[in-house]
């Protein structure tokens, strides 16, 4: 398998205006670190799940990968080409599409579906000889009738709006689609439809999918490999099935053990994890997870664990990863 997108040792900092920083972090540099030491690879034709609780940096990572945010360290490469300057992102932006969270809100309310589907062509200055035929063919691909092209986003059901979002992402024949919480707010009976559609398109069109989500139960079934983020740090990555069968990082273990069980015979006895996610303004020293980790030892409080290679495509950033 060849890498479609390679992220090495990525860091992203948010530059804060001087005054605000002075208030929040007296005496510190005007920067807030959002992501650090993130390394991952998206392969051709795979579904990659990016998992983490809110504030873990999932959307920031996606935006950095698309060149929508400046990076402050590390290397990015798409189809083998390093992405070094903002100009080097131009081909990527055409070959990679982002589906934003909350489909209806992200579709401009005053544009018809047809106009929304034509928009990517205008933005990327691509020829569009027959907008109606193109809209009809994109809609057909996502299982919607051509007549939908005349509707406005608020006239669509939740599932239809997501399908339009998928159609729009497919407009320029991307190699990569990054979907941010593609099923948030959808009922389970409709969630499956949207994900099955994306999985089928991935196979038909040979594209790669990155699904950003906090929904473990879903991503466990639809992704080939996953990465788990916590407070802007990569905690664990590997083939999805292996990670769920035997999570190596205590954070992954806690996340899996937190999922409520529909089967009352498998009720949890207590919460798997106590405390709250600390603020990025107050990141714990050492391992970012140590303040909530059931295994934390003295070492974890001052030494940041490196991402350790566990073999078979797995890696985890825990001092004790080999012991689980």
């Amino acid at each position, binding site marked *: 398998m060849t890498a479609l997108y390679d992220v090495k040792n990525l860091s992203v900092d948010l530059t804060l205006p001087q005054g605000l920083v002075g208030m929040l972090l007296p005496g510190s540099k005007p920067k807030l670190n959002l992501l650090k030491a993130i390394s991952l690879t998206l392969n051709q034709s795979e579904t990659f799940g990016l998992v983490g*609780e*809110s504030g873990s940096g999932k959307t920031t990572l996606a935006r950095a990968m698309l060149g929508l945010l400046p990076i402050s360290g590390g290397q990015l490469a798409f189809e083998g080409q390093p992405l070094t300057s903002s100009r080097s992102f131009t081909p990527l932006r055409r070959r990679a599409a982002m589906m934003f969270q909350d489909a209806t809100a992200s579709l401009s309310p005053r544009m018809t579906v047809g106009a929304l589907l034509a928009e990517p062509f205008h933005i990327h200055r691509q020829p569009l000889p027959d907008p109606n035929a193109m809209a009809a063919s994109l809609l057909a691909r996502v299982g919607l009738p051509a007549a939908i092209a005349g509707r406005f986003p608020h006239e669509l*059901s*939740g599932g239809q709006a997501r399908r339009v979002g998928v159609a729009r992402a497919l407009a320029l024949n991307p190699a990569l689609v990054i979907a941010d919480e593609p099923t948030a707010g959808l*009922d*389970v*009976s*409709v*969630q*499956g*439809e949207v*994900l*099955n559609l994306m*999985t089928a398109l991935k196979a038909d069109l040979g594209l790669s999918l990155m699904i950003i989500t*906090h*929904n*473990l*139960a*879903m991503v*466990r*079934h*639809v992704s080939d490999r996953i990465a788990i983020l916590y407070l802007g740090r990569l905690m664990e990555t590997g083939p*999805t*099935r292996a990670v769920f069968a035997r999570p190596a990082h205590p954070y992954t273990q*806690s*996340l899996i053990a*937190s*999922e*409520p*069980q*529909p*089967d*009352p*015979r*498998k*009720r*949890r006895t*207590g*919460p*798997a*994890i*106590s405390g*709250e*996610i600390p603020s990025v303004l107050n990141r714990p020293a050492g391992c970012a997870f140590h303040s909530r980790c059931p295994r934390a030892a003295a070492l974890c409080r001052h030494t940041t664990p490196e991402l350790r290679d566990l073999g078979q495509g797995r890696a985890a950033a825990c001092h004790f990863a080999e012991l689980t």
Partner: protein
Amino acid sequence: MTAPVPLLSVENLTITYASDAGPVQALRAAHLTARAGEVIGIVGESGCGKSTLASALINLLAANARVTSGAVRLRGQDILTLPEDAKRAIRGRHIAMVFQDPMTSFNPVLPLGAQLTDFQHHLPQTRAEKRTRARAMLARVGIPDPDLVLTRFIHELSGGMRQRAAIAAALLMTPDVLVADEPTTALDVTMEAQIIHLLRALRADHQGTILIVTHHLGVIGELCDRVYVMYAGQVVEEATVDDLYHAPRHPYTRALIACDPAHLETHTPVLPTIPGHLPDLTAPPPGCSFANRCPLVTSRCHTAPPPWVRLSDTQAALCHEVAP
């Protein structure tokens, strides 16, 4: 032997909302019974009428809502027909509510201590004593620094702490019935697990009944004793939580469980779905509301309303095709 009067019962409750397209039949002859000490689940997908039922229980229906028939009885007395001031006296004191968005429970411009004291206006104690009770309740719901939180505004707390504070506010009045509408839906999974654990712990010292309204079968499985499943404004099945998961009888209940990714034990890249969609609630079908999606449908399902079939002491379903 006559059955004792249940703590709470909903009988034949029918509620419509005025809309441009005609009256939306949001609840149709909904019914349930809850005894003291029970945790009851109300589950179904969006638009099935869960929140309408919850608002009827606390007498906070939308302005365009109309109760066309039925009763909500607290210890046998219909609370829907009481005069306005008597309704207000019941709300909070006898029936209290926790919402998906905990901000709903609080005034954003008052510190929590003042509000939690005011909520106890009907109690004879002094303000200082009420503040002490408020502090004790915050500690009871797992807020680590209750003295500090009493001086804070709701927006200064994290999502998990806000929901804890809302639960504390609801419990201050030691209500007979606590209704929680999607209490964990806005939370990350580790916070959700903590709130589930808290609600479970609270039932030990709560004498009344807890009603959990949710679309999430995991929350039902972890928390509830008995469950009512709703579809298109109707209660379609009633069962113990164990029977609901292990021996569901209504075709919709079965389909809903089958769609839940958490229910699928083996890796399932193509997720099950429920093809079709909800009927239009301004003109519900004359027969079964689930008929256009049901795998067991027969011709009479399209023409005759299905009967409420009692299957055991604890289980019943609204379906032509179930038999005791």
